[in-house]
């Protein structure tokens, strides 16, 4: 089976997000008052696996080993079957 995993990487709570803070300030200059702006990174990974469970396990491993840095990031994985 082919699956597409959407991995969302965000800073752990308490970590500063200077890009988000700067965007919030720039929005303020444009007249938009917002309570907060946070940035996150999104990866779409297409892979073959025997089952959704196996696919999720593999992608989780990828996140631990490369895609995220568990010291500073939290991540979520959403899977959908292709075809």
């Amino acid at each position: 089976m082919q699956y597409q995993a959407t991995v969302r990487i965000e800073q752990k709570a308490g970590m500063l997000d200077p890009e988000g803070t700067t965007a919030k300030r720039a929005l303020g200059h444009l007249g938009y008052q917002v309570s907060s702006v946070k940035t996150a990174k999104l990866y779409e990974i297409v892979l073959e696996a025997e089952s959704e469970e196996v696919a999720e396990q593999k992608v989780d491993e990828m996140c631990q080993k490369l895609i995220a840095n568990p010291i500073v990031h939290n991540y979520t994985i959403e899977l959908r079957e292709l075809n």
Partner: protein
Amino acid sequence: MKIAIIQFGGTNCDLDVLHVLKDVVGVDAETVWYKQEDLTGFDGVVVPGGFSYGDYLRAGAIAARTPIMDSVKKLAAEGKPILGICNGFQVLTEARVLEGALTTNEYPKFKCQWTNLRVETTDTPFTSKFRKGELIRMPIAHMEGKFYAEEKTLAELDENDQVVFRYVDENGKVTDAANPNGSLENIAGIINTSRNIFGLMPHPERASESILGSDDGLRVFESMADYITENL
């Protein structure tokens, strides 16, 4: 004695380090392209600065997972000294041989400036030629240099005398104003618990000859060379 200077695509401080080691310190050194995975015969390693792999994913993340880093880890396990400068420090934290992470500067801009540093420990192969508490000057040039670690890790770093350099003001005081990137506890460089893997954000190779404005960085390389001569 022979020191390897690792080159990844995007490394750009390799030749500066080579110049300092060969022409200023006067030891044998060689650049090694990352595809050469065998580091047999080398007595130490420098992972120099630059923008390996365009800082894709995170600074240092991809270089940290290349096979040559397994060879670097092997040398480290034999007790040989490993020095990571700037992007090299990022590579060593991403390879998890050093604690913590280097994240985007608190003011999210590329910072290129001189910094005052305080030598926190001389009990390392890289700082034996300094005095504890000595104030030195080296430049920084980075966007992801904010040292971050969990509170527990920070406490351990302090307890185990693993903090090597801190950003300070001209009087040697740890202040927010002297902190160029928001590093926790003003940490500029740390060493591992086995005390042979050292990473720092400032560039000692850019402060190794007085014509450059400071030669304080030279003693990092001289200490490393002395250590190899005396111990390996």
